[in-house]
């Protein structure tokens, strides 16, 4: 390996932030920051750039706490009220899963359980773990933690499933002689959980996971 090769290799095990370069989230180009400045404008597309997402940890915490609080009514309040010839019935998310299971559609019960209960709770717990690890400047397996972040960011949207199910049921079984279905207050709380946890994942900056590696090695 030639000397110039070795030098470029060294130069490229650096992060943009360490070299004072702001990377654009929109057009991928790099802009040199003014000395001492924390933010700047992209030289190619003019986007407002910062080295890291602003107040990432504080904002993620705020949205996470909101998510935890909303998770309680989302699971306890009924998401759906059914009025039929056989009487009135209120369903929470969990009782909806149980109903699917006992009525023989076990595969759907599994899908709804994963999307509505497993994904939101796993998302809250995993994101909490990630924020705490970043705050403690942990250097434990950053690749593993980045993968966790990727998974929670990509599966989050699927939790909207139950909201859409309720919306379709309400529209179809509406002013029917056989039954009427109405959306319950739990649906509002549940929708809010999905939105808030998506915002929390967006507020978190995965680059923070990798940052302590440099400061520790110096």
């Amino acid at each position, binding site marked *: 390996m030639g000397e110039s090769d070795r030098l470029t290799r060294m*130069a490229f095990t650096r*992060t943009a932030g360490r070299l004072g370069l702001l990377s654009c989230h*929109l057009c991928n180009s*790099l802009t040199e920051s003014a000395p001492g400045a924390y933010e700047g404008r992209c030289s190619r597309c003019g986007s407002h750039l910062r080295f890291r997402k602003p107040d990432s940890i504080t904002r993620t915490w705020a949205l996470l706490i909101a998510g935890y609080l909303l998770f309680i009514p989302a699971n306890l309040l009924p998401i759906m009220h059914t009025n039929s010839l056989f009487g009135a019935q209120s369903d929470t998310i969990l009782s909806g899963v149980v109903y699917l299971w006992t009525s023989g559609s076990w595969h759907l019960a599994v899908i709804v359980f994963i999307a509505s209960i497993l994904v939101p709770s796993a998302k809250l717990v995993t994101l909490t773990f990630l924020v705490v690890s970043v705050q403690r400047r942990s250097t434990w397996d950053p690749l593993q933690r980045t993968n966790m972040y990727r998974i929670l960011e990509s599966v989050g949207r699927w939790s*909207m499933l139950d909201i859409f199910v309720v919306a379709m049921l309400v529209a179809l079984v509406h002013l029917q002689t056989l039954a009427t279905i109405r959306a319950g207050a739990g649906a509002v709380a549940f929708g809010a959980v999905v939105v808030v946890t998506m915002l929390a994942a967006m507020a978190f900056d995965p*680059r923070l996971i990798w940052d302590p590696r440099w400061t520790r090695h110096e």
Partner: protein
Amino acid sequence: MVTLPVIACHECDLLQRKIALPPQGRARCRRCRAILYRDYPPGPDRALACTIAALVLFLIANAYPIVGLEVQGNRETASLYDAVHTLWVEGREDVALLVGFTAMLTPAIEISLLIYLLLPLKFNRVTEGTVPILRFLQTVRPWSMTEVFLLGILVALVKLEHLARVEAGIALWAFGSLIPLLIIASMSFDPEELWAKVTG
């Protein structure tokens, strides 16, 4: 500043040299395995074709009923608009807004803005306001949930099967074919090509 053939990873900030990719290849970050950039088919043709097809399907998906329900000889159908409308009328405005926003408005914005960008590109022109539109598309994209909505319809259908005879409407098929088209469109749209044109 000139654009260097260097890229910083969005997920771990590591600087890396850009290299030429084989057709349909993807470059991944050396450290965190994030996808840095892809190889796209040249020109906006494929992306434009898929987006226009997606627009037609989206209109069908919204204009026609998604499912029909038959109870004691009464036939009731529901479209996406009916779902939003019923929720609104029954006092669940918040849920109605959430469904309308994620299943109707956001996909509509996404598709129409893509056409607005791609069509002039086909004739080698760059549309006014390209940069703010790209910025807006990036913000809006995570909230476009057509594929989750489709799964929601299917779950609702199975739940109703015990109550009444259900039949799939035209819109269900339209939603089903809309999703792969949107995926192909976003995978063949090269933002770098647009950036090169914007900066002249």
